[in-house]
């Protein structure tokens, strides 16, 4: 447990505050009159658009503690009162997390009173989102004695506050990081809202910078792959073509969904549609169904969370309620958008986008709409929503996070491409052009939709697949030349190329032995080292 002296905590308020001082310096040269108060006041206005500084807590060194306490206190809830000042007093702190955003200071105080720890309580500070003042779902508790902290750690998690079990964490950097992370997931909607920069308003269309989601995840390789697109009109009347979308959706956890799922009245409608078209869909929807039987059902607040408790960290609840409330009216509109997305989350919807959705890539919407435009999907129904596309593809909210995964995905892509090419080549040579084309298309889409699709190696794989495709499509003997040339290129790219016997026959036909022998040092073409072996097959 960290020891903080009284002076450490109070220092932040009397003279050593870092944040305000910096602002003063920043603004000093902007002002004609060096009036500190108004410099700071201006700074306070500008601060509104600055995300709260992440408090850095180093629980060991005294000076560091005071500096870090400064940062955390000035960016959060600095409600230290003079009463607590007693010279030489030592303070003991801990974090209380997993509390709902509507858990008040009175609630925590009540719990503490019931545990007979109230006389020992010095202060409590809630960590808030600077943009809108709402609680991040955790608070710092300061006591006079370490004993109280211990008792709190043991006793508080046994209680429930607003149907949630609070968590008591020690006053360390890791605890803070954990709590921040939990709240970050719910803050994504805030981030979306406050992304500054140029935002133009054209009537109801707000054209602004792209969303967090777009920036966080990898791009879709440039183009929207037709086979996995989930267009709005098809949701209601048709099935999404190609790739089996529902499966990936089932595994979604804390992705940054943009559209909320349909709630209440639209849901029964959607359900029946899906039953006709996608047998797997109702499975998903059924999870949501029970709590939302009637029109008056709460759109997935505290009651439904028991159904999906594992899918969200408790901090998620922060945003569940308010968007839910607001979206009751927007349901019919959102229903269309949200079908493929099962996240109860209204969580991620964000307070801003009521009935209108932030659009990601400008695939096939109305011309001139930039990424991040605030567009009503009912007005532009052809418009694709970024989040929806990302969901079936991405199993995680972030991009490839580490090398091991990256390599794994890369090698998987390589395998996909090589097997696709070989299969396509053999199909083509046996006359099944369509099958070959389909194989190649599927492979292209799979690679493009993978998380490493932006990488050059993947782009090469895709290019070679596309060339193979082009080669197959053009009929005639030149086709075989093209195919073999492609094989050469692909092999050169380091891809393992499996050439089966039919393809080899064709190659032999065109007297391509020389090419093969050139390639033979490569392990992938070992079987072809001896031409005599070829003629035998």
């Amino acid at each position, binding site marked *: 447990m960290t020891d903080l002296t009284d002076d450490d905590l109070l220092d932040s308020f009397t003279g050593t505050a870092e944040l305000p001082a910096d602002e003063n310096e920043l603004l000093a040269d902007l002002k004609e*009159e060096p009036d*500190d108060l108004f410099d700071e*006041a201006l700074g306070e*206005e500008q*601060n509104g658009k600055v995300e709260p500084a992440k408090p850095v807590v180093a629980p060991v060194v005294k000076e560091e503690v005071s500096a870090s306490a400064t940062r955390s206190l000035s960016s959060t809830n*600095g409600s230290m009162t003079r009463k607590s000042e007693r010279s030489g007093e030592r303070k003991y702190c801990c974090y209380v997390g997993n509390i709902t955003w509507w858990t008040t200071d009175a609630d925590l105080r009540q719990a503490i009173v019931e545990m007979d720890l109230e006389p020992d309580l010095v202060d409590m500070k809630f960590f*808030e989102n600077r943009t809108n*003042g709402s609680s991040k779902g955790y608070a710092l508790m300061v006591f006079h004695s370490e004993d109280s902290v211990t008792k709190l750690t043991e006793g508080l998690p046994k209680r429930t506050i607003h149907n949630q079990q609070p968590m008591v964490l020690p006053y360390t950097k890791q605890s803070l990081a954990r709590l921040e992370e939990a709240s970050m997931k719910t803050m994504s909607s805030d981030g979306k809202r406050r992304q500054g920069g140029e935002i133009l308003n054209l009537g109801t269309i707000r054209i602004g910078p792209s969303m967090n989601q777009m920036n966080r995840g990898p791009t879709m390789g440039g183009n929207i792959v037709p086979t996995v697109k989930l267009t709005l009109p098809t949701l209601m009347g048709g099935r999404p073509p190609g790739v089996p979308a529902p499966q990936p959706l089932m595994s979604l956890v804390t992705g940054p969904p943009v559209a909320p799922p349909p709630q209440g009245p639209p849901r029964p409608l959607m359900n029946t549609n899906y039953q006709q078209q996608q047998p797997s869909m109702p499975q998903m929807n059924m999870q949501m169904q029970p709590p939302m039987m009637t029109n008056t059902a709460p759109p997935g607040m505290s*009651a439904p969370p028991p159904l999906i408790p594992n899918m969200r960290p408790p901090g998620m609840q922060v945003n569940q309620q308010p968007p839910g409330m607001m979206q009751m009216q927007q349901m019919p509109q959102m229903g269309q958008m949200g079908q493929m997305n099962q996240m109860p989350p209204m969580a991620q919807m964000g307070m801003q986008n009521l009935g209108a959705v932030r659009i990601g890539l400008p695939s096939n919407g109305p011309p001139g709409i930039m990424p991040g435009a605030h567009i009503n999907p009912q007005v532009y129904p052809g418009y694709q929503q970024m989040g929806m596309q990302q969901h079936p593809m991405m199993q995680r909210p972030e991009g490839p996070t580490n090398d091991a995964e990256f390599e794994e995905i890369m090698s998987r892509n390589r395998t996909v491409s090589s097997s696709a090419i070989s299969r396509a080549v053999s199909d083509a040579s046996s006359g099944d052009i369509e099958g070959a084309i389909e194989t190649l298309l599927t492979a292209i889409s799979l690679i493009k939709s993978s998380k490493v699709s932006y990488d050059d190696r993947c782009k090469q794989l895709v290019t070679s697949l596309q060339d193979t495709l082009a080669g197959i499509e053009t009929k005639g003997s030149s086709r075989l030349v093209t195919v073999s040339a492609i094989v050469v290129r692909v092999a050169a790219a380091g891809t393992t190329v499996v050439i089966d016997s039919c393809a080899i026959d064709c190659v032999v036909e065109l007297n391509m032995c020389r090419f093969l022998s050139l390639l033979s040092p490569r392990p992938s073409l070992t079987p072809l080292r001896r031409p005599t072996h070829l003629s035998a097959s």
Partner: protein
Amino acid sequence: MVRENGWPETGETALRSSIPSQVAELGKECPLRRALLLRHVGNYTFATKDPQTERDTSVQARFQRMREEYDVVGMRRSVEAVIVVHEHSLPHILLLQIGTSFYKLPGGELEQGEDERKGLSRLLDEALGNPEGDKTEWKIEDEISNWWRPNFDPPRYPYIPAHCTKPKEQIKLLLVQLPEKATFSVPRNYKLIAVPLYELYDNSTCYGPLISSLPTTLSRFNFVYSS
């Protein structure tokens, strides 16, 4: 713990009303619409007077004094005046400009127990009143908005955040109507400017959330542009 329709049981609310310091007169009739007479900005003349200094010399001092007073009297109550004139068929709001880029509404802190309207009149006299000469009649009839400061920190919000039961300051914005003609004496360290609504709209970076949201809150009034 759960009601029959699925909503959880919540028990007592943390606060009784959204403006806890006020008595809520439910069911009191209020007109659907409100029309106000606006004067043209040319009706008014401006003089200067001695500089008006702030009570606090620095940010630290400001919040320190806020803390000390909170312990004694409780939540601080501030009032600010929204004075509206018109020009070019557009309402303009009078702001005090300090330096090149800081703007504030005239107003300040109320004394303990002071009535809001009387207090604002006093504060307006201090800010814009003529030291020798006619006393301007300030007509205060409308409360426009309330903002709260949940902690001893700069941020203010137009609501009390859900987790906060004890905000540290409440700022009330009141609409002030002017007499037909008047002279304002502006302290030398301020500039009094009339800012059109379009300049404030969505311009939180320049004016802060309080002032930049005024066009929206004032849109409920039907301002009559008198010539």
